[in-house]
C-alpha cells in the first residue's frame, strides 16, 4: 500500500472510532474498549479486503463477516455506515428503543450484518457454517470472523477450530483482537491463554501474529491468509484496548462503560485532533 492509501484507511478508522464514541455516549452504555481496539481491523476488512457491496447486501457471492465478539459492534456499525449500508446518524440512536442498531449485531434488522452474534463463541461456529456452505456450492467467497482474546476462553471457539480444520476451510479467516483485557481484568490473570498462536497451530490453522493497528501488517496478514491452502487461517492481531482515546487505552474498566459528558468531549477532541493530523499529512 502507498502512504496515501494508508492515510485514507487511517482516516476511516479514526471516523469509526468517533462513531463508537458517539454511539456509546448517546446510548449511555455499550462497549467502547473493544470497539476501539478492533476499529482498524474492521476498516481494513470493509475498505480493502472484502468483496461486498452495500447496494446489494444479500448478494450470495459476497464475502461474509461475522463479529463473534458482538459487543464490539459500535465501531463495526460506523464502518458499515461509512460503507453506505445506512446513515452514519443511526449511531446516535444505538441501543435506543425501536432503533435499528441493537446492542449486539442483529442480522434481521441491520443491513450489512451477516450473522446475529453477541453470545461469545457462537459467531466463529456460524462463520464455519458459512465457509462450509461456500465450499459446498463451489463459490469463491471468503468468510471472516473477528473474535476476542477473552472469547478464546469459550470452549466453543475450540470446537469451531476443530471443525474448521477438519473440513479444511481455507476460505475462512479468524482474526483475534488480542487486546489483552477482559471485563474482570488482564486476560492472563483471569484465565490465561498462554500460547495462543501455538494453540491455533496445534488445531491445524495457518497463523500469523501482527500489530492489529498497522495497515501494512494487516495487508500482509490477509494476503498470507488468502494464499494458505487446505486449512483455515488465524490472524492474531495484537491491539490496544481503547486505542485512540488516551484515557481509555489499556484500561479494562472501559470494556463496557459509556463515556459521560466530560469524557465524551475529551474523547471526541482527541479523535478530531487525530483526524486533523491525518488531513495535514494527506495534504
Amino acid at each position, binding site marked *: 500500500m502507498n502512504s496515501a492509501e494508508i492515510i485514507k484507511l487511517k482516516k476511516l478508522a479514526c471516523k469509526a472510532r468517533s462513531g463508537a464514541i458517539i454511539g456509546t455516549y448517546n446510548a449511555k452504555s455499550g462497549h467502547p474498549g473493544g470497539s476501539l481496539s478492533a476499529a482498524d481491523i474492521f476498516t481494513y476488512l470493509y475498505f480493502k479486503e472484502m468483496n461486498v457491496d452495500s447496494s446489494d447486501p444479500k448478494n450470495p457471492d459476497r464475502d461474509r463477516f461475522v463479529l463473534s465478539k458482538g459487543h464490539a459492534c459500535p465501531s463495526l456499525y460506523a464502518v458499515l455506515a461509512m460503507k453506505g449500508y445506512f446513515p452514519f446518524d443511526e449511531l446516535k440512536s444505538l441501543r435506543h428503543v425501536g432503533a435499528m442498531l441493537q446492542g449486539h449485531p*442483529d442480522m434481521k434488522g441491520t443491513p450489512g450484518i451477516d450473522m446475529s452474534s453477541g453470545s461469545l463463541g*457462537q459467531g466463529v461456529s456460524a462463520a464455519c457454517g*458459512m465457509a462450509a*456452505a461456500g465450499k*459446498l456450492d463451489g463459490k469463491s467467497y471468503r468468510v471472516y470472523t473477528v473474535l476476542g482474546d477473552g472469547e478464546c476462553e469459550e470452549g466453543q471457539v475450540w*470446537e469451531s477450530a476443530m471443525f474448521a480444520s477438519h473440513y479444511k476451510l481455507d476460505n475462512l479467516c479468524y482474526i483475534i483482537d488480542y487486546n489483552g483485557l477482559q471485563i474482570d481484568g488482564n486476560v492472563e490473570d483471569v484465565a490465561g491463554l498462554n500460547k495462543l498462536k501455538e494453540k491455533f497451530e496445534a488445531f491445524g490453522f495457518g497463523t500469523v501474529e501482527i500489530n492489529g493497528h498497522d495497515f501494512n501488517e494487516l495487508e500482509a496478514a490477509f494476503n498470507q491468509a488468502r494464499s494458505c491452502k487446505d486449512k483455515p487461517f488465524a490472524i492474531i492481531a495484537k491491539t490496544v484496548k481503547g486505542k485512540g482515546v488516551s484515557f481509555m487505552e489499556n484500561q479494562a474498566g472501559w470494556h463496557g462503560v459509556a463515556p459521560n459528558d466530560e469524557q465524551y468531549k475529551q474523547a471526541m477532541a482527541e479523535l478530531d485532533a487525530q483526524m486533523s493530523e491525518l488531513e495535514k499529512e494527506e495534504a
Partner: protein
Amino acid sequence: MAEIINKATRESFGMALCELGKTNKNIVALDADLSGSTKTAMFQKAFPDRFFNCGIAEGNMISVAAGLAACGKIPFAASFAMFATGRAYEQIRNSVAYPGLNVKIAGSHAGISVGEDGATHQCCEDIALMKTLPGMTIINPADHWEMLEAVKASVEYNGPVYLRLGRLAVDSFNDPDNYSFTLGKGITLHEGSDITVIATGIVVKDALEAVLELEAQGISARLINIHTIKPIDEDIIVKAAKETGRIVTVEEHSVIGGLGDSVSDVTSRLCPVKVTKIGIQDRFGYSGPAKELLKLFGLSKENIAKVVSDIVKAEK
C-alpha cells in the same frame, strides 16, 4: 386396515431425509458422533458431501448449522434430544431462534424410552426448553407415516423447527392412504363425547388402544393426536373442551412445560375445563427396558384407560 410398520421414528426420519435429499440439494445434515443412532448416517451414505460430522461438540454443531442456513442451506442438526436441546440450548436460542434461521433440530432418543442408558440420557424436558423460544416450531410425530410427513413439512416450512425422534420401535397406526399432515393442526383419531384424550408422540398409539378399550366399556372418549406442539391447534382443543368437558393429556415428557401445559394454557384462556396430565411427574427416570419404563411411568394403555375411566366415573 393399513399395513402395520414396526419402526422407530428415528429410522423413519433417516429414510425421509434421504428421500427428500434426492430432490432438494439444499438439504444438509449434521451430527455429533451419533449418526448411527439418529439415523443421519443414512443421509451421509447417500450424500457424503452434504453431511458434516461435528464430533462430540453439539454447541458448535448448532451454530455451524446456523451459518449454513444463513447461506441458503436447509440443515438438519441431529443428536440425542438431551444434548441437542439441553447442551446446545443457548446456541439454539441465540444462533438459530433469535435470527429465525432455517435450521431443523432433530432430537432423538427423547423421553424415558431411551431405556437402559438411564436418567442422564432420558430427556423429558426438550419440549419445554424449545417451547420457550420465540418462533420455534415443535413437532413430535407419533409413528412412521407421521414422521415421513413431518420431515417433509419441516423442509417446506422456512424457519426453525425442533423435531422429536424416538429410539424405540413402535407400531404404526396411521393409514398412509388416508393420512394428511398439516403443520399446526391436530388430528381427531377417534370421536367421543364423555371426555377427550389429547396425546403426542409415540404414546398416541397407547392412547388409541385405551380409548378403544374404553368404548367397549361404554365410555365415549375422544382422541386427538397433537403432532405440532407449537404452534398448537387451539381450535381443536377448545372444541373438545366445549363438547366433552374434561381433558386428559398423554405425553412421554415432563408434565411441566410439555403438551399438558400447552393444552391447559389454551383451556384456561379460552374454555376452562379440568385437565389431567399423564406424563413424567417432575422426576428423573432410571435404567430399564423401554417398555417396562413406559409402563412404570404410567404411559401404558392400561393406565391411560384407568385414569380416564376414573375421571368419568367420579364425575358421572
